[in-house]
């Protein structure tokens, strides 16, 4: 099996779809000559030309909206919003338009558009270039929401997103672009709505997304050394959510930790915790732990930034807290 970086995996999904399908094109700020602010689309201008690798002016709202309009006319555009924080500028189009057009038209319209964006702490970009806003879009009926954590997943899920007939908000994590992993020779679509069990375990289930999947796997290894067996599950798609897999895992382990980089309060973990406490109430031996960013904007100074966002030791501490409780 070939090895790709997360960055290359994203690019491979885009390029392969564009090779096989004239309707697929990409648009965004500085995605052409420069290959995007994270180098994801690097080299694509040369292969596909400026009609299909389309630099846009700084107009997040209109570029999102133009992608929607093209999608309504049968294209499959993939729009890049350079930083997740700028999704706020495209929010009207994503939330009031893309998500609702099919519904408001009573099923007449189809809007097969993907909004790719990225974010994450770790490089001290400060409060306006690092926040994680995936929870917002999970709250909006009509959208699908994907957040992949490995090269294999990001490629297979982006592929599925491009060919999904619904608007998909597709989150990437900045610090993952460099990680490498094996991927199937040929792109295999990964169904939207299927969680991935990264590691089986008996004592506690950690449900994690994005960067925190990796932090959780690290924490799980550490916990193992301390005699605690940890199952790590990545929902991968936040909407639809594979409640079945998550709940089944917790029914097996009787304990749960939810981990993401976004602020804990009103973060995606709140939804997961609510679902689990409801569906696995009689199985739970301890309160569900939530691990996420502390309640602050992201500060600049690295020492403060690292304090705000969670790491493997935070996940480990949560694991230990939850197994420290007596079951009943």
């Amino acid at each position, binding site marked *: 099996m070939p090895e790709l970086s997360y960055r290359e995996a994203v690019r491979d999904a885009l390029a392969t779809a564009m090779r096989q399908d004239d309707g697929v094109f990409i648009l965004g700020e500085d995605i052409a000559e420069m290959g995007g602010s994270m180098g994801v689309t690097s080299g694509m201008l040369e292969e596909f030309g400026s009609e299909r690798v389309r630099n846009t002016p700084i107009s997040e709202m209109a570029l999102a*909206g*133009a992608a929607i*309009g093209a999608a309504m006319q049968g294209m499959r555009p993939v729009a890049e919003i350079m930083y997740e924080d700028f999704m706020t500028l495209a929010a009207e189009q994503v939330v009031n338009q893309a998500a609702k057009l099919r519904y408001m038209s009573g099923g007449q319209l189809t809007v097969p558009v993907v909004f790719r964006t990225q974010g994450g702490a770790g490089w001290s970009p400060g409060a306006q270039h690092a926040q994680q806003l995936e929870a917002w879009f999970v709250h909006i009926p009509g959208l699908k929401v994907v957040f992949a954590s490995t090269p294999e997943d990001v490629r297979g899920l982006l592929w599925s997103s491009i060919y999904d007939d619904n608007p998909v908000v597709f989150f990437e994590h900045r610090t993952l672009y460099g990680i490498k992993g094996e991927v199937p020779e040929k792109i295999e679509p990964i169904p939207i709505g299927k969680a991935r069990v990264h590691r089986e375990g008996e004592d506690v289930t950690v449900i994690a997304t994005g960067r925190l999947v990796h932090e959780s796997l690290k924490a799980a290894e550490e916990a193992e050394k301390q005699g605690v067996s940890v199952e790590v599950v990545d929902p991968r798609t936040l909407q639809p959510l594979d409640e079945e897999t998550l709940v089944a895992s917790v029914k097996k382990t009787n304990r749960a930790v939810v981990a993401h980089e976004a602020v804990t309060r009103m973060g995606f973990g709140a939804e997961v915790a609510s679902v689990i406490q409801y569906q696995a109430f009689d199985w739970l031996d301890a309160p569900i732990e939530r691990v996420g960013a502390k309640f602050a904007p992201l500060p600049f100074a690295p020492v403060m930034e690292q304090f705000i966002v969670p790491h493997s030791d935070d996940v480990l501490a949560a694991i230990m807290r939850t197994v420290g409780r007596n079951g009943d």
Partner: protein
Amino acid sequence: MAKVETKTSLAKGDLRDVLREMLLIRRFEEKVEERFRAGELPGFLHVAIGQEACAVGVCRALEDGDIIASTHRAHGHTLAKGTHPNELMAELYGKAEGCSHGYGGSMHLYDVERGNMGANAVIGGGLPHVTGAALAFKMRGEPRVALAFFGDGATNIGTFHEALNLAQLWKVPAVFVLEDNHWAESTPESQHSPIRDLSDRAKAFGMKALKADGQDVEAVYKTTRQALDYARSGKGPVFVHLDCVRLHGHYIGDPQVYRDKDEARKLAETRDPITLLREKLAVSDEEFDELDAEVTEIVEASVDFAKNGTDPAPEDALKNIYA
């Protein structure tokens, strides 16, 4: 597709048909006001009484395959783009037979088969869609044009600026039709815009701008034709500024406390587009009454149709969320 042959002005026979269509829209909207006041219609409704020449003049100029995006003030555009009054009225009654099958309502009218990509209740919300649709046409080499309606108030929102800028930058076949009725809800133009000629908005993008009297349906038709030809030929988008009037309130039920009562009365006397066309065509009272009776019957029938329509089942609300 071959390039469609261009008609640059309306023939006399066409004009009689145009009058009939404008009158149909007028009677339809008057009926909507009446039924709303009778408590039969849910939702927020906005009539475009006084702006019929814009809707009809513009939509007549379109070719098959061209598409429109409309606004919250959408009944006229929807009828002019070919949706049957029955389907429109049924939508306003929230029936499954409605043009949005009861999911949309007055501010969300769609008829995709007929090229109506929808009303939009968010000011400016549909403008980037038109840029994007036109881009799709251009990328596929189709000789189609995407056309957006919007109001004077909409020229203040960022979406307007971004969408038109992008359209011009990409030289897509789009036409942006400003229906300038000089009011944004309760706010007169002098209070919402710092410039007195909204055609100047196009200068920020270097976009070709045309202007017409929006009360004169022939002028609207001709100007739109010109704009469509230009856009279709690949030269880029066009901004069309139609100077028009809003004879009634912003929404049905609006007491218009903010507006001089005389203003609307005077406008109704001097600038009613139906009266103007009727005079121009020298339609006799008898002829007019005949036309009127004919369209009134259609409107009445649409109310019957709507009232006899099917209420969606409550659980239908869980359909059509995802494809």
